[in-house]
């Protein structure tokens, strides 16, 4: 499959009377977007705000981060099965608004939302301090259950991102990248001497607000399958989960999957990048066994020589990670796994909930339990009401002087397990 990504560089976001993109500036009229959000009867109100890199702004509680994209050539539309119909995407041409993101916020669970600081030490840990963020703070109707609220906010985020993406549909891209994978036979003929490499992407599916969707399907219900990485660039995989902020994979990171990007850079040089395999992280043992068996089998059937395996979340999914690694290695396929660590605030505990000698090549996104002091910032988009109870905080988090004492676990994307960030540990 061949997909062109046309990049439209966004250099500023401003509120204005009419919504449009002109000379790299995104003009937004909130009145155009509000009805898009409030078409869901579960949402009572929404406020839009803009956060720019370097500003003294804290966004919390953050739910998802989404990059606006629009499909201009080829089948289907972005977010198939969620927004567009379920045509197979991943071919043709898609325009992406670079340098910006739509950030959804709201007190959904009260536990597993995150913090994005646009300046200060916290900003170093989150990739979304470097994007211009259009933030939507969504307020639910009375007595709405958490899972209904989550769904309403999730879908509203995709609708808004799609609407903004569509503003770009007649624009010329500033830069175009082409991503192309070969068919099985074609790849063997084209790269007869190169090793065959795949990417196993584990999707968070523990349930109870820990869910991921593929073409609109709850990934708990899938058995592992293959997908073209270009489909994912068109929004075939979206986040619907409230895992700890540091190691959840927001939709933005699926769209801009760094492993895919870096594997494409070596495609046709060091190896033949065959495809992406998606699997899940269900909580039942039978599901774990079945999914890891299937994943190892797919690696074997595709005659892969090696794979990178990435994770989402921690604890329970560590067992899926290790099962995948062990079984794939047992098929004679080499693995590198990407994870993060919960080694305790002192860094002295074992970092994973499971381990195996087969996991001899590990990349880590760092210790999520590391404590950091976040300074008081001038403005909060969202609310601080929940900052003492989000995962990684404690009853001592909000201090008298307005600073926050937290584990980096609370920071969106801090220890990302798809290798989006630079943090590591030894």
């Amino acid at each position, binding site marked *: 499959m061949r997909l062109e990504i046309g990049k439209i560089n966004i250099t500023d976001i401003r509120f204005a009377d009419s919504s449009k993109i002109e000379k790299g500036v995104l003009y937004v009229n909130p009145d155009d977007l509000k009805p898009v959000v409030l078409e869901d009867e579960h949402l009572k109100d929404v406020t839009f705000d803009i956060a720019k890199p370097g500003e003294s702004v804290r966004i919390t509680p953050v739910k998802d981060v989404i990059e606006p994209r629009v499909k201009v050539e080829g089948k289907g539309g972005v977010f198939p099965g969620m927004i567009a119909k379920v045509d197979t995407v991943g071919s043709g041409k898609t325009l992406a608004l670079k340098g910006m993101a739509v950030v959804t916020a709201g007190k959904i*669970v009260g*536990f597993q939302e995150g913090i994005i600081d646009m300046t200060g030490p916290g900003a170093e840990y989150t990739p979304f301090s470097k994007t211009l963020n259009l933030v939507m703070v969504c307020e639910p109707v009375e007595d709405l*259950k*958490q*899972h209904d609220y989550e769904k309403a906010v999730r879908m509203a985020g995709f609708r808004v991102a799609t609407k903004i993406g569509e503003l770009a549909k007649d624009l010329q891209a500033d830069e175009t990248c082409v991503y192309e994978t070969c068919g099985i036979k074609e790849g063997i003929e084209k790269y007869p001497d190169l090793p065959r*490499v795949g990417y196993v992407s584990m999707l968070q599916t523990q*349930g*109870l*607000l820990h869910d991921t969707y593929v073409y609109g399907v709850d990934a708990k219900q899938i058995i592992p399958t293959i997908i073209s990485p270009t489909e994912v660039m068109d929004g075939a995989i979206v986040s619907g989960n409230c895992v*700890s902020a540091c190691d959840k994979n927001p939709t933005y990171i699926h769209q801009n999957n*760094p*492993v895919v990007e*870096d594997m494409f850079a*070596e495609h046709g040089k*060091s190896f033949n990048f065959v495809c992406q395999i998606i699997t899940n992280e269900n909580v039942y043992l039978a599901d774990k066994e079945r999914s890891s068996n299937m994943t190892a089998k797919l690696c074997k059937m595709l005659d892969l*020589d*090696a794979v*990178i395996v990435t994770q989402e979340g*921690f*604890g329970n999914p560590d067992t899926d990670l290790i099962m995948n690694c062990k079984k794939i290695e047992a098929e004679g396929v*080499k693995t590198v796994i*990407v994870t993060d*660590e*919960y080694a*305790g*605030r*002192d*860094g*002295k505990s*074992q*970092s994973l909930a499971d*381990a195996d000698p087969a*996991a*001899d*090549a*590990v*990349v*880590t*996104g760092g*210790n999520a*339990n*590391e404590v950091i002091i976040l300074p008081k910032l001038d403005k909060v988009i969202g609310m601080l009401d929940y900052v003492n*109870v*989000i*995962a*990684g905080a*404690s*009853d001592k988090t909000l201090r008298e002087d307005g600073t926050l004492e937290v*584990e*980096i*676990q609370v920071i969106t994307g801090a220890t*990302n397990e*798809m*290798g*989006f960030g*630079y*943090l*590591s*540990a*030894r």
Partner: protein
Amino acid sequence: MAKIKVVHYINQFFAGIGGEEKADTPAELHKGEVIGPGTAFAAGFGDEAEIVATIVCGDSYFNENIDAAKAEILGWVKDLAPDLFIAGPAFNAGRYGVACGTIAAAVQEELGIKSMTGMYVENPGADMYKDKTYIIQTKDSAAGMRDAVKKMTAFALKYAKGEKIGASCEDNYMNQGVRVNFFEKERGSKRAVDMLIAKLNDKPFTTEYPMPDFDRVEPNPAVKDMAHATIALVTSGGIVPKGNPDHIESSSASKFGEYSLAGVTDLDADTFETAHGGYDPVYANEDADRVLPVDIMRDLEKEGVIGKLHEKYYATVGNGTAVASAKKYGAEIGKRLVADGVDAVILTST
């Protein structure tokens, strides 16, 4: 700023006294003298630090008279009150490495003075002391002196000045069994691709997290006489009395709670809830028996299947909680359960 005061410890060989035949040389204090590798350190320190004294001790003497030698040297170091104590480097010399590790660790622990040493990774002193003092990794012989002094000097200045010490791979010390975060030059995905290419081509690569040894717990034998047994409930699912009186954290719990079940036959939405941040709390909050099955236990009690339900239960949050913390809570809860005469425990997780 005043110069950083350093006391340097070396053995008889590096002091130029002699080899094995002089290894029984007792400890000597050379105030104001810079000897052997100290010269190279002094050059590296420039104006920032000075060696105020060198302590020389034979390797056999130190290891055979360890308590006396240690006490004597600690006494000298205490009086000199340096900012930093440096031992070695010992390279792959076994007894010298152990001496350097022992004395550096003692200076740090007993005098509270910053200490460091340097040696080869396979020196027996390395495994013994790498978590008790900073050990800079050196080559295996004195041919690596230049390299060792360069790394040790850089570390010494940073450490003595109180600057933040980075991860072991950044500052060239041996990992102390403590995970330290730092920012890499390449993002994780690129590092993974590079590692994959190395592994594919059978080239060397270094894992960023060597797998730990796991602590496996064997289950106890089955309870033979359930009808007279006292059974307790313990959960990591975060079930707490409404309002979470102990403020147990939603993740990375710093404590566990002990709560009464006296007179409680059923947990309901008005009296119990979950503090756990790892799952949708709706169903646990509606009916906390779903996580802590008090209702069923009361039924079993009535039916005579079990003797009785223990009147206290224990709860913490498993979400993101360090194994060391969990181990500590488990040991303490176990002690209390045994003291209360509990026969068996049902552990529930989420």
